[in-house]
């Protein structure tokens, strides 16, 4: 079934799991003849400070090659929103060694795929190719780390592309416009209040000077993490990395990524968008909570489990109570984005079905939030949620780029390979009391932000 409500629910669960999780407990898996297949992740540092992680996957002659820079939209200078993402696009232009498009053609000529993405805390570039082409990819990627040539013409045309991207992703969609302004309300000081793609009027002004300054400051080997996942051996990767990335000079040490943080929040805020394109209303309520990087030991793990038990899937409380039992919602759920450098958000959401009103759904969601903070979770709920996380890690190992993304995101947000390897044990240790405490401490409606997407009012319009 392809109803959008179910798709949303599954998508969120998958997203939350994949980015929070990984699978060292599978370090040994039995093969058919009883012999253990070793799964061992290797990490080391190049002399210029570039971190390298090698994840084995010998099932097919494919390798995923990613370079993660520890620079995202939340690191942008004031007034220059969108520069991190804009710069990601500019990285595909000419360098002093390669004409524009040469790298793309080198990838497509061997049937590879390539792309790049930008988030609040990182920017990553990646190629998937046959292992025989890995060194070539490294040489292109190392080249564009320092040798990009940016002209005003290139800047102008590519800026038009990102403006079009903004129109496509945000301005054409009432849901996205609302989300953007909910974020700007939830976050009163922290840079996550600014959209990754940037505010239109600031994007329009981004120029060559901004781009060059950004490049020189952040695109350095000592600010980068190399992730190689696939049919390769760590020693070979190391030799190739030294030959390519190793030749790039270390940049000046960057200051610690200390950004403005949230002041104490004391209010309940609402953000409302009414739009003629909307026929079925929905709402979401968000709170500021710690991430894996900012939380006390075990706190983010407890929030992950809380999100799963409260609203992680069709066995969750919100789904069972609102969609199945009361029959008032077409969907309802919760999610937590734990892999962030700074404090992050915890979200609950819902939409009505049939004759139910949005207010009924919101009241029922709030009641579940209050109940879980007051009464906590059962041991059975907790065990099932832990099992689902552990299982998701095993499934993640079935997809090479999922594994690469897990390690890349963790290392770009202040974590380590060891953090990932110990994660399942830390999840296993979370107690029901800790989950209850997390809910009681953070899910307080008196300091929350709620967004409403509503149909256009008939009267008065």
């Amino acid at each position, binding site marked *: *079934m*392809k*109803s959008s409500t179910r798709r949303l629910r599954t998508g969120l669960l998958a*997203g939350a799991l994949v980015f929070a999780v990984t699978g060292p407990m*599978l370090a040994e*898996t*039995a*093969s*058919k003849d009883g012999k253990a297949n070793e799964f061992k992740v290797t990490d080391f540092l190049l002399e210029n400070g570039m971190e390298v992680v090698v994840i084995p*996957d010998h*099932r*097919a002659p494919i390798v995923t090659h990613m370079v993660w820079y520890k620079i995202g939209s939340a690191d942008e200078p004031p007034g220059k929103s969108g520069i991190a*993402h804009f710069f*990601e696009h500019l990285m595909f232009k000419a360098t002093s060694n390669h004409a524009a*498009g040469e790298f*793309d*053609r080198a*990838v*497509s*000529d*061997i*049937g*590879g795929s390539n*792309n790049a*993405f*930008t*988030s*609040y805390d990182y920017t990553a570039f990646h190629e*998937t190719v*046959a292992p025989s082409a890995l060194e070539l990819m490294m040489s292109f990627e190392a080249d564009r780390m320092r040798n990009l040539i940016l002209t005003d013409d290139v800047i*102008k045309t*590519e800026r*038009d592309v990102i403006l*079009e*991207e903004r*129109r496509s*992703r945000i301005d*054409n969609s009432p849901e996205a416009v609302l*989300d953007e302004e909910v974020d700007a309300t939830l976050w009163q000081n922290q840079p996550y209040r600014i*959209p*990754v*793609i940037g505010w239109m009027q600031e994007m329009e002004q981004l120029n060559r000077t901004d781009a060059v300054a950004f490049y020189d400051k952040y695109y350095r080997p000592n600010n980068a993490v190399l992730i190689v996942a696939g049919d390769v051996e760590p020693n070979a990767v190391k030799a190739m990395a030294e030959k390519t990335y190793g030749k790039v000079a270390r940049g000046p040490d960057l200051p610690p990524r200390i950004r403005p943080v949230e002041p104490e929040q004391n209010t309940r805020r609402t953000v409302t968008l009414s739009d003629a*394109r*909307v*026929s079925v209303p929905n709402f979401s309520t968000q709170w500021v909570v710690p991430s894996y990087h900012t939380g006390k030991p075990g706190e983010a793990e407890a929030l992950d489990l809380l999100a799963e038990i409260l609203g992680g899937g069709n*066995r969750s409380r919100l789904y069972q109570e609102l*969609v*199945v039992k009361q*029959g008032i919602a*077409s969907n309802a759920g919760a999610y937590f*984005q734990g892999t962030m450098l700074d404090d992050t*958000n915890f979200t609950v959401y819902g939409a009505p*079905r*049939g004759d139910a009103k949005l207010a009924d759904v919101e009241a029922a969601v709030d009641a579940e939030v209050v109940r879980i903070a007051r009464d906590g979770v059962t041991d059975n709920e907790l065990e099932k949620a832990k099992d689902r996380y552990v*299982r998701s890690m*095993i*499934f993640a*190992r*079935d*997809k090479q780029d999922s594994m690469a993304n897990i390690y890349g995101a963790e290392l770009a947000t202040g974590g380590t390979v060891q953090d990932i390897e110990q994660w399942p044990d830390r999840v296993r240790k979370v107690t029901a009391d800790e989950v209850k405490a997390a809910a009681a401490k953070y899910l307080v409606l008196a300091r929350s932000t709620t967004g409403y997407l509503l149909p256009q009012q008939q009267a008065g319009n």
Partner: protein
Amino acid sequence: MTLVLDRLSAFPAAAARGEGMVYRTFATLCFALFFLLLPVLSARAMDIQQVTSSKGVTAWLVEDYSVPVVAIRFVFGGGSTQDPPGKEGLANLMTGLFDEGAGTLDSDAFQVRLDDAGAEMGFEESRDGIYGSMRMLGEQRDEAFDLLRLAVNQPRFDQAPIDRIRGQILSGIIAGENDPDTIAQNKWARALYGDHPYSRSDQGTRQSIAAITPDDLKALHKAVFARAGLHVAVVGAIDAETLKKKLDMVFGDLPQDQALAPVPDIEPKLAQHVEVNYDLPQTSLQLAWPGVKRKSADFFPAVLMNEILGGGTFTSRLFQEVREKRGLAYSVNSSLVNHDHADALIVTTGTRSDRAAETLGIVRDVVKQLAEDGPTEAELAATKKYLIGAYAINNLDSSSAIATTLVELQLDDLGIDYMQRRTGYINAVTLDQVKAAARKLLSTEPAILVIGPALAGAGKG
């Protein structure tokens, strides 16, 4: 928070369909065909076993123990085209009900068992088939297969889950009623396909889904879930002898023959202009030309031609002319669509509304030039290399992806050794054949869909 922005995300929800990626462009399933296989992969050829159970159920198996996961995927021919008139949305509703009770287990009991088994089960329909898939942990495969047996053979279609899932689908239908994209895609399907079943929304209408009864669901299940229309693929930690027993258990007791309503072939109606006007900052454009049948001798020449025009790389002509040189769009691409009864070549893009006419003109110029002059020898050579290499990366990057690919190869009757042969098919295509394909398909006047402000006097040509 919008977490991640890609350099290019023209293809949401990509999934493999045997010969290539499935892109969901609006409401239309587009099968862009990349044909493929790494030469290097044939060197270590994927060992596909044909397994036939004692009751005569056949599956393709790739046995692999490197990750302790088993993925199964299967299809029964006959999808939403089998919805009886007035009961549109029946197949879609049915696919939402397989985890909502089977055998002696009601909805809740079934889902608890599924969760305990650590398995993920999903059903979905396309226009031409009903697909099922399950991903399970190797050590819990017995419980998982047993639940799959119940779902396939004895779905309960209880009234309460029917009403609940129907309510969710209804919410989705209502949600689209004032959405210009949804309105446009429904109008576009009617314009292209007239009164053919392909013109209908797979979700149905408010009236049609209200009319569906449990007896309708049972009748559709009986007509479609039969062995003659079944194709199965399994990948992962299971051997052939064990799989044979599972195949008998899950599929062995189904009836032999399907009872499908005949569906005629249809040529999409081109040479027409469809507009849905709405004051949007970005206008969506969709253009349809004739496609080519999977079994046609022109198929590979057309695949190469489409790839050169606007395929999945950053080097295509449309990408270069519309985005790279002019900054008129973030996404622009073309894809070949192959349904069982209709084929098309579709170009889609989104562009700032005040320059939509200009963008449409450039798209049409690029198409016209390719139709008149064809590609260059160098473009063809590079595209062949891309398509040969891209197969493994696009189609075989996880157990689930491999299973999906193997089901589509069976549906298209391409043979178990197809991956070894396809490089030869691609290399055999001549420049003259590609020129002929371009001339034949692209010289036709296309159907054009515009979603946005009225397009002033544009796009004629």
